[in-house]
């Protein structure tokens, strides 16, 4: 069965959205490698990045197979990861932000572990629900990737939730930092629930799930953890980011610059 061009684009866009989410957060969290606050967390973050980059690879390989079908030139997973520019990435803006809050222009900041933990928690809480639902996708390869990823993200959620409680219900300083990170990042989660053309198409084809249908379940996961962490949920509102539609913050291009630089300078390099 040949999918029509437009339906195919919506489906590959949807798969790229899932893949880009995993790759961008995997790359961002890998910044802690060798710089973790304690050795165990250094290793934990690197392990989770490995999971995320593994998930991204499976999804890119799947997209590459779909795009290569009937095309004159084969698309590769590397081309999708290393040779697309920022505006072609479909990840949530939340995932590309640096590991600290907003700064005045030109100011520099250290990485803040509370930001890392809060982001991982907000994203993992979504992904346990999304991967769970995607196990029923009519795209059987996506369903298989979802079943594998679900097992991994349960451990990611367990890790970030534990640390969220430890920081929120810890010392006055750790509480202040966790609350500040939550206030900074929570508005970005509004992007999860806004409709997009690719998600609408994916829902219609029963290949994907509109994250908006998971909002109630996500709210109860999040509120339950925040209560235990003695953190206050900031009020909703403000600008709704559109990373999944290709409109990103300034931070993504720097992240991609670092990640893609080697592949672009030495496109045929192997080792």
């Amino acid at each position, binding site marked *: 069965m040949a999918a029509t061009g437009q339906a195919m684009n919506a489906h590959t866009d949807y798969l790229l959205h899932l893949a880009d989410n995993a790759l961008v957060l995997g790359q961002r969290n890998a910044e802690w490698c060798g710089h973790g606050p304690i050795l165990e967390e250094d*290793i934990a973050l690197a392990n989770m990045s490995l*999971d995320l980059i593994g998930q991204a*690879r499976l999804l890119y390989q799947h997209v590459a197979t779909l795009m290569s079908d009937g095309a004159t030139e084969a698309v590769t997973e590397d081309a999708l990861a290393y040779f697309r520019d920022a505006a072609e990435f479909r990840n949530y803006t939340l995932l590309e932000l640096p590991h600290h809050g907003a700064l005045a222009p030109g100011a520099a900041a250290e990485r803040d572990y509370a930001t890392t933990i809060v982001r991982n928690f907000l994203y993992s809480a979504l992904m346990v629900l999304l991967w769970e639902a995607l196990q029923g996708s009519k795209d059987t390869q996506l369903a*298989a990737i979802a*079943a594998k990823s679900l097992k*991994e993200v349960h451990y990611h959620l367990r890790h970030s939730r534990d640390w969220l409680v430890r920081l929120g219900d810890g010392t006055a300083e750790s509480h202040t930092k966790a609350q500040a990170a939550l206030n900074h990042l929570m508005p970005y989660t509004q992007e999860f629930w806004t409709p997009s053309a690719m998600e609408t198409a994916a829902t219609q084809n029963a290949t994907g799930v509109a994250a908006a249908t998971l909002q109630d379940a996500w709210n109860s996961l999040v509120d339950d953890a925040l209560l235990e962490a003695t953190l206050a949920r900031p009020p909703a509102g403000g600008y709704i980011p559109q990373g999944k539609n290709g409109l990103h913050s300034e931070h993504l291009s720097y992240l991609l610059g670092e990640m893609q630089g080697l592949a672009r300078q030495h496109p045929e390099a192997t080792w």
Partner: protein
Amino acid sequence: MNTIAQPPVASDLQDVWALLETVTDPEIPVVSIRELGILRDIRRRHGELEIVITPTYSGCPAMGQIEDDVRATLQAHSLTARVVTQLAPAWTTDWMTDSARTRLREYGIAPPHTLAASNVVRFTTKPIAQHAIPAVACPRCDSENTTETSHFGSTACKALYRCLDCMEPFDLFKPH
């Protein structure tokens, strides 16, 4: 030598299983990929020998090495095969054989609980109090007086533990 290796007939598939028994996990060399549940099937398709393997974790860096090891082992016996990676059904530690569990323990790694006995997978559907992994016995002194040091150990598939009786640190192969 002018003998050309033929794809084995059905009864010979048993021989291939036996051959591949020597292929072990690159990171845990005491257990074979069959015992771990990574080697899923050996079959003939269109006259070609096909070896089916499945990754443990999505990002498991050992998969490439395992594929090479499978090919090299067969090549040493003049066999060529296609190595196919299959994702579904998703790998689970429940596929690990009893012999693998015993060998892991002897090697110093606590084997995983069965998924039915552990509360980790799908824990979002359970109250938070039930999240804890059941007691893990120290692979050195068998004491269950142990504590988790870190959710993630030397590899993604392990967690770091410490025995409070013999004081030795050890890895737990996480239920997955």
